């Protein structure tokens, strides 16, 4: 299958290894990966912060960039959530019927990585090897907007060497919320403190998730505590094999 990678702006600039892992993983499963370098950002940051007109520019840019793609896959539940759930709103609220039509034609082809693997490709064992104690954080957008369900857990359970430990209060938000983490820094920090406690209580070596934004938040808290537990994107675990440890 030909897969168009949507790498997301955050991954592109700050977490390129997640993108590299996604490419490696999809190619290992026998697919062709395309990276359309015209892509930039989904516009979530703008839309969620109230700058809807500015977000519209990015919505249009995304639609133009991926118009002809067969399947668009991103290692981010949050950005895919933006596209699938909020692009139609953005077009509706702007009263742009033509854009709405284009968006509705595009959204069924946009997938988060784990749901794409499990629900679209029917793959649960990607042949990964990762000999560590790991806990999984269910990110809000993957869980409640995309309803990826247990797709990430199914994938993790088939990773050789990996010991999966359940994260207490797994359905609780880590408190990132984009600009929320800065605008309401105190409340965000209070949420993070509980999340970090949950992570540490698992005594996992690594906390994983399908979103580097949430992991950046949790990791930022762990780092400040010098806790030693690291954060690693799900794609990096799934890309690791016995021949080549990716992460």
């Amino acid at each position, binding site marked *: 299958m030909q897969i168009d990678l949507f790498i997301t702006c955050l991954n592109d600039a700050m977490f390129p290894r997640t993108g590299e892992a996604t490419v490696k993983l999809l190619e290992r499963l026998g697919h062709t990966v395309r*990276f359309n370098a015209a892509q930039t950002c989904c516009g979530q*940051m703008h839309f969620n912060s109230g700058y809807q007109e500015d977000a519209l520019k990015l919505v249009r840019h995304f639609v133009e960039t991926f118009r002809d793609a067969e399947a668009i896959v991103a290692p981010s539940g949050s950005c895919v959530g933006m596209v699938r759930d909020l692009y139609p709103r953005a077009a509706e609220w702007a009263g742009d019927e033509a854009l709405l039509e284009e968006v509705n034609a595009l959204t069924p082809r946009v997938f988060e990585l784990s749901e794409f693997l499990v629900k679209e490709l029917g793959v649960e064992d990607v042949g990964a090897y990762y000999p560590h104690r790991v806990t999984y954080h269910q990110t809000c957008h993957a869980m409640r907007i995309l309803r990826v369900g247990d797709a990430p857990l199914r994938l993790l359970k088939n990773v050789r060497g990996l010991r999966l430990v359940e994260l207490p209060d797994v359905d609780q938000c880590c408190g990132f919320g984009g600009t929320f983490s800065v605008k309401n820094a105190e409340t965000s920090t209070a949420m993070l403190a509980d999340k970090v406690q949950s992570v540490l209580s698992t005594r996992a070596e690594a906390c994983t998730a399908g979103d580097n934004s949430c992991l950046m938040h949790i990791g930022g808290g762990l780092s400040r505590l010098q806790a030693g537990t690291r954060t690693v994107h799900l794609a990096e675990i799934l890309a690791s094999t016995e021949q080549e440890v990716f992460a």
Partner: protein
Amino acid sequence: MSAGGIIPRKTFQDAAHETLSNAQMRRNLQHATTTIRDKRLRAVSELPDWEELRTQGAAVKDHALAHLGDYLLDLEAAVQRAGGQVHWARDAAEAREIIGSIAEGHGVREVIKVKSITTDEIELNGGLSERGIHAIETDLAELIVQLAEDRPSHILVPAIHRNRAEIRDLFRRKLGADLLTDEPKQLADAARLYLREKFLSTKVAVSGANFAIAESGTVCVVESEGNGRMCVTMPEVLISVMGIEKVLPTWQDVAVFLQLLPRSSTAERMNPYNSFWSGVREGDGPQEFHLVLLDNGRTDVLADEVGRQTLRCIRCSACLNVCPVYERAGGHAYGSVYPGPIGAILTPQLLHLEDKNANTLPWASSLCGACYDACPVKINIPEVLLYLRGKITEEKPLNAEAIAFRTAAWVMSEPHRFEGAIKLARTGQGPLVKQGAIHTLPGMLGGWTDTRDLPPLAAQSFREWWRKRPAPPTRETDGDAQLSEGELLGPQRTDDRGPV
């Protein structure tokens, strides 16, 4: 006094600071919300058709709202037929005036009250007090809040932020109760002793309404303690005030909400007390009944296509109990009698998006979506939050933040600008990076680094890596299909449309 109104005195950020720095209050809140949250989940999972019920609840409300004018007129006519009187109040001041003058007309110094958030919305207690009339809260939690001269922190559990020891001390001080321990039964007995005397001696009662049924002119209040039932049956005069959105067309519609509301709020299958009254009946219950229909900003909310779903709200408070922001910041942070996620969308709308402090509320959310999942009438709270953010931002004068976002959109709408910006930032971050992380950021971004580290931008972006990577080995795609020639040439030729 416990009345609070809906106009926040501070921004959410400033008000949240108070609860966040009060460790006891945070513990109380966390304990209470976690308990209610778990109970609600159990109560809801008992019903196999919960999702259908939610859909039906939303549909009934939408229908009632779409024909609100008609149903309100039906309600008015039915109440009058049943011997009641109907009053229309455009805003809080008018509602206070109507209720105050009725009470004054009966020459009373005290009125008893059924727990009602709408009376708090219109600051009724304060209004009555200006006329020399003391309003007595009869709901246990409301009484606690009133005696403590505090504000409610929760729609359903107004004293959620108080623990038993605090309540014992309060009852000792204010009711002169002889309390040896803080056992719940002892606390309840002390309140009961005080309230019984009031039920027997007070002539006028004020209630809110959970629902009003247009076809029969019936008003309904559901509750757990029975104090409300005492208020609506024992006094001579009953005044009920309700937001105009509370009207339902028929009794059949109520049946849907009597399933949705208790499970979502108290996690009960049915409320212990469900009181319905239609007008007056000679020799039975209050001999004078007044219904006050309150607008107070609601018709404006109704006029807004996206915002109007807010008026479906049945005040169950399920959204508060699942909200991670409410759990930490507490109800007072929202500065209005409507706290939590629903408050974050209702309060600014009731104030026509013109109140500066209320306009900070739509940002008091991490957009985790838990509120939408829990809402029994499917109010898409995250959607309304975003919609309101857009509306409020649109009206703001151009400031530094707006310029930053505009610039970012300009940069990101072209890949080469985006790549250039990454490179620029990578150079610029140099002095900030210490031991592989950023520990301090300037300006507004400092809110992040006060408590969290930030990883630096990667030395090589993904797109830089992609350009340099060797073409992937030739292989078959799913099934037998061979790659096309263009695809075999790899990323460099066909895919990389951006500038090198």
